């Protein structure tokens, strides 16, 4: 594989080498420099919705600006400040907006503490309104970009935006794989298996799936619909999935 060119940049006074094409946030993380973020995950393309990863940069040519580090590719001679006063005050408002949006979310409260923010000046939303969803769209993006079925998406525009299955009804496309549950940064999506039944609960819609039983250990291990999907995509037979992964090893 062709190796990308390396560039030299400075993050918080540390001189670093990084591969061209990487984003500032990735490079900071690789070097144990903390930048808060809620809407990134290495599985999907950066999106830039939460704005928490804002940093102050000065380019080699001396241009200064604020950018979201999840989306800004590193470049030669870049100087990055991850936590100036200006950034801290913007982040403070951002986290306060989230505290009011999702008063029930421990993740948001913990992040607020980490950012040194105790309270929010904004009236709290009813806990049931947004549940724990911050609309980072990671779930919908994983469903589209990784799983490839786009079973859930953002509906409505602007302040009325919600994350849901189409028309809030059970989605034909959903295979019950739970990838969305896994990527959600605020644990806003719940998944529960009981007997041969899996339930996935998004903030504003929910679905049930029938699970297949493993012929060897007898545990219910995968939704039938996920098997159909995998079988179809990989051109295998649905019968190939009668034994669970652990028993196959």
């Amino acid at each position, binding site marked *: 594989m062709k190796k990308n060119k390396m560039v030299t940049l400075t993050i918080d006074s540390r001189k670093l080498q990084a591969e061209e094409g990487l984003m500032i946030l990735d490079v900071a993380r690789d070097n144990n420099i903390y930048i808060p973020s809620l809407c990134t995950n290495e599985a999907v393309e950066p999106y*830039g*919705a*939460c*704005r928490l990863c*804002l940093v102050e940069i000065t380019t080699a040519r001396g241009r200064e600006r*604020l*950018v*979201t580090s999840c*989306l*800004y*590719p590193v470049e030669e001679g870049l100087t990055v400040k991850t936590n100036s006063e*200006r950034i801290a*005050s*913007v982040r403070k*408002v*951002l986290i306060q*907006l*989230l505290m*009011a*949006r999702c008063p029930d979310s421990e993740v948001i409260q913990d992040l607020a503490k980490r950012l040194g923010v105790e309270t929010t*000046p*904004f*009236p709290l939303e009813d806990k049931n309104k947004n549940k724990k969803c*911050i*609309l980072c*769209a990671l779930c919908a993006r994983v469903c589209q970009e990784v799983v490839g079925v786009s079973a859930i998406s*953002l509906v*409505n*525009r*602007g*302040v*009325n*935006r919600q994350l849901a299955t189409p028309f809030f009804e059970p989605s034909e496309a959903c295979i019950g794989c739970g990838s969305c549950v896994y990527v959600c940064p605020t644990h806003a999506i719940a998944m529960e298996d009981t007997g041969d039944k899996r339930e996935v609960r998004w903030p504003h819609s929910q679905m049930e799936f029938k699970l297949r039983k493993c012929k060897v250990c007898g545990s219910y291990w995968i939704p039938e619909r996920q098997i159909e999907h995998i079988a179809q995509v990989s051109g295998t037979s649905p019968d190939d999935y009668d034994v669970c992964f652990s028993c196959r090893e």
Partner: protein
Amino acid sequence: MVKVSSFAELETLRKSIVARRDPQKAMITVCGGTGCHAHGCEKVAAAFRQEIEQQNLAGKVDLRITGCHGFCERGTLVVVKPQDIFYQRVKEKDVSTILSETVAKGNVIERLLFTDLATKEKITRELEIPFYKKQNRLILGNNGSIDPTVIDDYLAVGGYAALARSLQRMSPEQIIDEVKKSGLRGRGGGGFPTGIKWESTRRAHGDTKYVICNADEGDPGAYMDRSLMEGNPHSVLEGMIIGAYAIGSDQGYIYIRNEYPLAVKNAQIAIEQAEDYGLLGKNILGSGFDFSVRINRGGGAFICGESTALMASLEGHVGEPRAKYVHTAEKGLWNQPTNLNNVETWANVPLIINKGADWYSKIGTRNSKGTKIFSLVGKINNTGLVEVPMGITLREIVYDIGGGIPGGKKFKAVQTGGPSGGVIPESLIDLPVDFDELTKVGSMMGSGAMIVMDENTCMVDIAKYYVSFLEGESCGKCLPCREGLKRLREILADISEGRGEDDDIDLLENLSVALVDGSLCALGATAPNPVLTTLHYFREEYDAHIKDKRCPAGVCKELITYCINNEKCPGCGLCVKACPVQAITLTGKKKPAILDQEKCIKCGACYDVCKLCAVDIK
């Protein structure tokens, strides 16, 4: 139509069109713009057509339906040529008189002329009306004289000469240089230098390059792009073809909102006619250059005017912005180098090529060249589209062109740049209007909407209004804009409804900074402008609402009471009839009416209806 396959043939065609036309023949032009449509111009035009036919006048008089003149409020506008007699507020019933008096005998019909409010003088020629006098209608000028659905009209006034000149005598680099030298900056809001944008797109690597015309115009109150698209679509097309040649693009798009049916229709007709003549398509004018244009209709979301959202929408995705750290000049539509310009920007291009950058750059100020079209609306006597040289003062626009404030009211402020522009107070009325000056005072050029406000406008209410508009238009992708605008609106509502607290001002400011610094796109980043400017210039009004629970302008319902002024009220009973909830009663002849505060819903009907100003707002 015959294809024109060389530069010489284009000139021959132009000459033959001009030769066929007799400049001395009588002609009636009826404005067919959307504004005049609202005044019934279709009926007026139909009546002319019918009368001309019935009276067998076709050989003596031509009828032409033109684009918008800008003075929409006075529609339907009719001009009789060759004398250039300008009639306003023309109705169907005036048609036969115009034919029998003006066309046949050359008599001027006084009652259809414009009357100057200040001098009471009747004015016969369009350009002598004060509304037009200080304008410099380089871009809008042909709107009122050509039929936008007839390409020959455009050719007759020199259309497509700039294209021929570009293809025949200029290299792409020379065109870019000329546009750079002209100092043209984008009219879509940001004011980015057009030549530099073209150059970046030309230099960018890509198999295909695109040019796009942004005709989304989502700004409430702005309609210059619509007017140009409807009234002179070929000037926009010509600009696009020249731009495409300079950039190296063979495919263009016009992204136009579906709510503009006439603009869509006229743009479509223009494209087809240009194709028929060979001014679009393969091997344009025999130059070897290919370029075609397609129209794409937008759903009418404000955010779809933003460059990256527009491109996403053109691709068939949801119209949401993305970060522009990689410029659209490098990776735009379908990830190819793309050059997006506003309608008015494109329409400036033929002018620059025809008259030269040196000529063009003499108009305007140091860093803002040429003219700008503003839509002048609100509390002002003459509303409409005005095209003025950059650098003209707000005073000249408001008083000389706009004719001042109606009803003897005091001028208070003007909002420029649309919902996310700023409110500029009276103390800055001598501000020269250009990109940088407007930005300096906290506002912006934006699309060129100009909303004039009088003393009865409450600044907290205005800020709330714009913030609610933007809240409704936020795409919702990024946190500060989506959640922050909602909170801004809530706080402003609290203040205007008497629940304001001392900390609210700080909160408004902090939120505003977070939006400016933190938003993904310019919608969120400019949205706090109305809040920040009203806070800056009208702080005492916020204080009055918060501390004294008082609305000095008498607008915020929760903070005012309507009272009958006993000394002035003669008990005429007009207000009694106007009140929808029977809160006012009469106690006897010539005795003042009594207003029951318990019942009053503060609709203001009594205040509006009282001829003696005997209703006070406290």
